[in-house]
């Protein structure tokens, strides 16, 4: 990831986080404020509803007491036979706006029932004695009708005529009509669940329009209210259809749960406003982010352009073009950095020149030193041989022939060494450029292993080849690579005079190949590993010390890399990465 990209991302992320954080704060603050306002509104609505409900209750009480005080009831109380009045309740109920009305004798027998005329004579035992309705005003009751049960908001009044008593119990049904008759503010609705059966049944849930269209969301709320009757609030629905419901359990005279009122306030306005604000916020945030990103990009571009220039120059330098300079004229830190870079590259150039000079000088000196060292070795035997010949002619002429003979052999051997050294040096000096072609290393390894098979066998060395069958072909000079392989194998044989194992592995790696030649010989120390590829450095008693230098040179010409891993006594592994 480039610096510009990183910087752009950081700036963009900063903008996004900032804008997002602000947006979130605004929204959450707004939502909290709305929630508070909504809660207050719901409380006010619930209070208003309670008032309305209470007013209806008062209406019922008033109507029932009015009926109890009427002449009609007095006549019934005084009549010795109440049979003629069995149909009286119906007219009284409709005249007083009641759905339910029963006139009950002192013994609890129904004289007249508006809601179920046929029930005359049946007993309403709950009226007699201490049924708890006295001084209760309006209360809830479960009423039985011909077609089932219903809930009613009822009141009871007593009629006394001398020693005769009548009870008047009347009320209004808590049903769809009752709910639709309640005066409610806009956005508010009331649902009534009539607890008339075991278990929660959606059929018992009604609103002012009748059966609730989608009762499923309310059933868990109702179940909670049934299990633990208390007032609580709950949100139902989602999105614009979400509503805040205030749950009010309705209990009868014996504190039994007869119904549940759900007073709902639509959160549509708040939700829509919230959504509007959120959308605006998102739009603004998005716009802000876009602007921020654009600004960030412009800023990063401006900021990173000199950096890019710096980077480009640095890359050039890294690629070896030490003449790269950064052309920046700004006076800021980037300009200072550019000027420092230029100075650095110039210094690096100069240093490189000097280094190259020094290395060249050092290399020549080293080469001269090694060459001198190498050349010097054969010269000493030559000198000794000449001195031996001189001494012998002068002092032991009888041994001069033998000495001359031995001496001349030594001369010739040492001259051969000198020739070899010079030849190797010449080889090293004039290593040709590799001729690249697609080469399969596995094939070269096979050929090399077959070539050295007798020698390995004689040396009691077990050859192993662990070759990757999927090894790709790489561009290489097969002769040079073969020369490398052979060199390494010879070194490995030299490292295992007592025998061992030689393992050659090939594997595909990072788009190229790796070849490893591992032996189980005496191993090398760390210092030896460090100097292993230095020309004329050798650990062997024979050889010119140029083999691994040449190997390294070949590998370098193939744009590859060679490394060594070894520990004394544990063998040595040469790894060559090519391709």
């Amino acid at each position, binding site marked *: 990831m480039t610096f510009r990209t990183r910087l752009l991302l950081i700036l963009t992320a900063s903008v996004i986080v900032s804008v997002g954080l602000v947006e979130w704060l605004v929204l959450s603050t707004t939502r909290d404020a709305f929630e508070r306002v909504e809660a207050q509104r719901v409380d006010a609505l619930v209070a208003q509803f309670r008032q309305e409900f209470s007013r209806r209750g008062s209406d019922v009480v008033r109507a029932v007491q009015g009926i109890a005080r009427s002449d009609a009831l007095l006549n019934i109380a005084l009549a010795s036979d109440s*049979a*003629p009045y*069995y*149909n009286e309740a119906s007219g009284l109920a409709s005249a007083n706006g009641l759905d339910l009305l029963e006139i009950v004798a002192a013994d609890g027998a129904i004289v007249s029932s508006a809601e*179920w*005329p*046929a*029930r*005359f*004579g*049946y007993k309403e035992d709950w009226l007699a004695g201490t049924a708890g309705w006295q001084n209760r005003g309006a209360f809830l009751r479960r009423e039985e009708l*011909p077609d089932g049960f219903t809930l009613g908001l009822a009141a009871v009044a007593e009629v006394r005529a001398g020693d005769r008593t009548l009870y008047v119990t009347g009320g209004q049904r808590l049903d769809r009509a009752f709910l639709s008759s309640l005066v409610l503010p806009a956005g508010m609705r009331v649902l009534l669940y009539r607890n008339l059966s075991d278990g929660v049944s959606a059929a018992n849930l009604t609103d002012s329009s009748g059966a609730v269209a989608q009762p499923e969301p309310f059933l868990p709320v109702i179940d909670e209210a049934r299990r633990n009757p208390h007032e609580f609030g709950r949100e139902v629905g989602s999105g614009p259809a979400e509503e805040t419901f205030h749950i009010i359990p309705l209990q009868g005279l014996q504190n039994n749960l007869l119904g549940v009122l759900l007073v709902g306030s639509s959160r549509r306005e708040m939700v829509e406003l919230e959504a509007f604000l959120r959308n605006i916020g998102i739009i603004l945030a998005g716009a802000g982010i876009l602007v921020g990103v654009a600004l960030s990009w412009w800023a990063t571009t401006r900021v990173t352009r000199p950096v890019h220039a710096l980077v480009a120059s640095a890359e050039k330098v890294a690629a070896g073009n030490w003449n790269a300079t950064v052309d920046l004229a700004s006076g800021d830190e980037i300009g200072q950095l550019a000027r420092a870079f230029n100075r650095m590259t110039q210094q690096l150039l100069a240093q490189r020149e000097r280094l190259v000079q020094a290395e060249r000088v050092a290399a020549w000196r080293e080469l001269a030193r090694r060459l001198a060292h190498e050349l010097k070795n054969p010269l000493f035997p030559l000198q000794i041989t000449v001195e031996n010949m001189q001494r012998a002619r002068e002092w032991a002429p009888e041994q001069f022939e033998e000495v001359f003979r031995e001496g001349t052999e030594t001369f010739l051997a040492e001259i051969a060494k000198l020739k070899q050294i010079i030849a190797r040096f010449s080889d090293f000096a004039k290593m040709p450029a590799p001729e690249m072609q697609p080469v399969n290393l596995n094939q070269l390894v096979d050929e090399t292993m077959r070539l050295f098979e007798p020698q390995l066998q004689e040396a009691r060395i077990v050859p192993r080849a662990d070759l990757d069958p999927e090894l790709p072909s790489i561009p290489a000079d097969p002769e040079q690579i073969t020369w490398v392989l052979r060199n390494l194998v010879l070194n490995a044989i030299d490292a295992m005079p007592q025998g061992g194992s030689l393992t050659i592995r090939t594997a595909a790696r990072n788009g190229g190949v790796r070849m490893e030649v591992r032996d189980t010989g005496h191993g090398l120390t760390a210092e030896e590993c460090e100097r292993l590829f230095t020309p004329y450095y050798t650990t062997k008693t024979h050889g010119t010390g140029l083999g691994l230098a040449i190997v390294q040179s070949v590998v370098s010409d193939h744009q590859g890399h060679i490394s060594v891993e070894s520990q004394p006594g544990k063998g040595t592994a040469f790894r060559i990465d090519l391709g």
Partner: protein
Amino acid sequence: MISLPANTLLMCLRWFAVLSAAALAVAATRPHYGGTLRVEVAESIETADPPQIGPGMADLGGAFSVTRWEGGHAAVYSAGESAEGGRPFLDSVEIQMGRALRDQAIDLETGKADLVELGLAEIRRPAPARKIWNTAPVRLIALSFAPRVTDERVREALALSVDRGAIHSVLLQRQGEISGGLLPQWISGYAFLFSTAADPARARSIVSGLPPQARAVTLSFEDPWLRPMAERIALNARDAGLSVSTAGSNPAADVRLLEVRITASDPSVALARTAATLGLAEPPRADSPEALFTAERALLEGFRVVPLFHLPYFYGVSSRVRGGPGITPLGEWRFENLWLEGSRP
């Protein structure tokens, strides 16, 4: 002083007393000729010609003759000069058909009608200026089961669950009589032999042995005035474990609450006609009350028909109508002796 034999004297005294009584009777008000009796009925007879049989207008055929007939609307009967027993006092009888009972009662009280039919609701309403004629209990109110109700236990359970006493006391305002037989007591003399007591415990016991699907029964009522009674019967049946749903006229109902008119005072004839109307088998001709009782009891076995009450028909009569009653115990119209106060020939 003439001396008369004692027995002659006593005989004279006797006849003197009779003649005095007769003279006193002659001193009572005499009927007036003239006037039109205005009658209203609820039934709307849609036929093209006036009815020839049945209680009601058909009974006027002897002393009166039809001079105008508008089927379903109105009819006018005029007095026959050569009627048997003498020309009726009334000039004519005007009949309005298809009038609701409530409207008839209003017309009577406002002076627009002289003779109207009264329902139980109208009977209850006090009307001091109104006099009432009523027939004997000739209206049989009964439950009649459809043939598809084959399980006798269902019929018996429903029959046992009905609390006739409460219905009679409250809904019928103690008019008429509770009945367990097809014929009323005044015709048969043995109606009390048929049990009318409810036995809800036994009804519940029977229902408990019924499969659930057999416990649902539909009950229809032909006339709206029978609705309260039907609903009360449904409530009684519910207490016994039956599920009875009520509806107005429904030919497919399992049981109907209906009203059948007794049209003969002869017990054997009345039983045969009533059985025929109810779709029961024709009873054998009975030559004694005991045989008739046996026949009637056989008709009621199986609870295909459950008699509940016998009610009279009630008629409100305006104060200007004299010479009554113009309705016989069977409900036949006898207007030939009626006359109107204030009318002039």
